[in-house]
């Protein structure tokens, strides 16, 4: 799992994940999201465009990040979910909590 963070001009941190977001990488990703929030970047957009596979543990990491962000007064949004990710979101009904934005720009726009 490769993680790249880019802070946009409006202070939103775009976190691009690359690889499998699954039980093996979930702990790392959750910690990484928490670290961003601690560093003061509490408005997060997670770019899932290059995530080849996501499972429920991966979703758990995103929810963990969401918790951290909300507690700091921020938020976490997800963008560019692949078909597989959309299926998992639907299957767990997590799409009723998180809106999968089609692009990073759309996700950033509302902040």
């Amino acid at each position, binding site marked *: 799992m490769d993680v790249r963070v880019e802070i946009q001009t409006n202070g939103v941190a775009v976190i691009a994940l690359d690889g499998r977001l699954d039980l093996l990488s*979930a702990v790392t990703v959750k910690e990484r999201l928490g670290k961003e929030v601690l560093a003061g970047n509490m408005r997060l957009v997670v770019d899932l465009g290059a995530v080849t596979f996501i499972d429920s543990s991966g979703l*758990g990491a995103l929810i*963990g990040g969401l*918790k951290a962000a909300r507690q700091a007064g921020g938020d976490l*949004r997800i963008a560019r979910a692949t078909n597989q990710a959309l299926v998992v979101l639907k299957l767990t009904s997590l799409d009723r909590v998180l809106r999968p934005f089609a692009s990073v720009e759309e996700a950033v726009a509302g902040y």
Partner: protein
Amino acid sequence: MVSNETAMPPPLEPVVLDNGPTRWLDRFFTPGTENRERLRHAVLRVLVAANLILGFYYISWRYTSSINWAVWPLSLALLAGETYSYIDAWFFGLCIWRLKRRSGAGPPPVDATVDVFITCYNEPIDLVRRTARAAKRMRYPHKTYILDDGSTPAMRQMAEEEDVGYIVRSEDWKGRNRHAKAGNISNALLQTDGEFILFLDADQVPHPHCVDRILGYFKDPQMALVQTPQVFYNVPKGDPFNSQAPLFYGPIQQGKDGWNAAFFCGSNAMIRREALMMSGVRRYVWELERRVHRALRAAHKLLADARKQPAETSPPHVRQALSVLQLAVGGAQEALRRGVPIQEVTWRFQGIARDISGRLVREDLSRIYAELADIPGIDAGDAADLQASLSGLLDDGESLAALTSRQSSPLAAIEAVRSLLLAVDVDREDEAQPIMPMSTISVTEDMATAMRLHATGWRSAYHHEALVFGLAPEDLRTALQQRLRWAQGTMQVMLRENPLLIHGLSWGQKLMYFATGWTYLSGFFSLVYLASPVLYLFFGILPVRALSNDFFWHLLPFLIVNQLMFVVVGWGKTTWRGQQYSLALFPLWITAVISACENVWFGKKLGFVVTPKTRPGGGITYYGLVRTQIITMIILALAAFWGLARLALGVTDDGWPILINVLWIAYDLVMLSAVLDAAAFQPYQDFEPEPPPAPFPLPDLAASS
């Protein structure tokens, strides 16, 4: 830190179990070749069908032509008891009908990752050490973890010495509900990464081939759970506390397995992580939705009430704020109905609310908090506290009602609404983890968790082979507490998540889960069964119109076939203890049902059996714990004596009814006597039980298919 045995295990040697039975009847009924299995199953089905038909023959006769209306309260009570038992016979019959004998899992997948969780809470270090060593010794590559809920330095040191992983609760759990074992496991799940998890209790020593034997089931991608039987190595001859439960860890589990409803017992079982996590995420969404809806409804009511208050208490700008906020609440409700994600709705609403109340409230904070603070369940010292207490209210309908039914100033109402909606944030501030993979609705978290897995389409298997060896309670007190907890937990599940109403379960699964709860209701009907002969012998009250030939011809065939069925179902095992205990523990079942109802409906804490020990000469006996049963036995014996004496003295000539009732009492006495044995039982002082030396041969399940 973590043991990871990477050496390739040698191939499994097929071992033929050859201490088989020799009598022809035994050969016929004991598990063996496939043909014999089929025949046995056919015989069982015939017996099940005959049992239900004869039962119907009896119960319909009871309904139509034998109720003694002269003593209708007792007659109807007895009829209710008999109906209960007949329905129970249906549940048992349905279960056995689908009895599934699996012939083994086949070879395990080669590249699966396995975690072994040993859950412990202040057990003796050396006991856990033995488990850890055996767990580490298992052949299939895996990581072993000790989940130490007691978090003691000695346990940590032992884990280091044995080179196994050691997990305690994370910081997040400080000051929050720990949810006992369910919390312990949920905590560890978020710190580990194996695809499959083998659950072991602190005392459970696994066979070196344990993982090899069951992992193969998970080649089915829908397989979520494999349960193995609980086997105890410290149970003395006669099994005084009915620990082995041979009917349950055998025909009943195999029957449930046939309906894809194998019962998860919390340990000596393996679970697919993805199934647990998915269930946890779904649960998170479901609870969040419920909380948001509740908060919005409460907010709506608060605001509506505040607007009704006289104009002098609320200046125009406050009234305006109230109406803007009310619009926002309505807008949020509407958005949720349209399917806008919760995250977006709460984010937007919180923005508006923060804006409005921030402007209005700042100057009045302390007065407002004081006003809110006298609502039950709220501790509104400052903003953060208020939010946390309101968050708690969202799970507690009563206090939430108290909040909304109360008159407060418009300003306080605005602040309450704002905090309420902040409290219902997506982060589950009140819980240590937003996601709880293990269900927390019951003290038997295992049953509730598995039911959720089944409801979401996952499959389960019961693997009937002794692979894990543990310790059973060695005194009556512990045994009773354990049974009480199981019964209470099951009733909590029944009351909180009635399996009959759970969307996603097949009707077979619903009935199998419901049947588990149904059996625990037996205590109430046992009262009727115990009281009936006493009432007849002392007072001549007979709830059946005639104890004549007619009665016999209706009941006897049913009783005979019923016993025959149990003989075949439990062939070669002693199921007698189980039958005894289901009647003998009637006070415990009643306590369990009542306390679970009080817990679920009125929030009362679950109590435990507490009775002082008596110490006659050295050994400890536990007659005090079974006082009710002893008194019952005395009354029964007196009634029998009275009846027989009247017959002998020629006071009455109702020979048959008296004899039948005396026989009935004799049966009850034999059943109840189980608790006397158990109360008097003394663990052997010089008996230090050892788990079977490993590796011991396992029968080759696959060879028989």
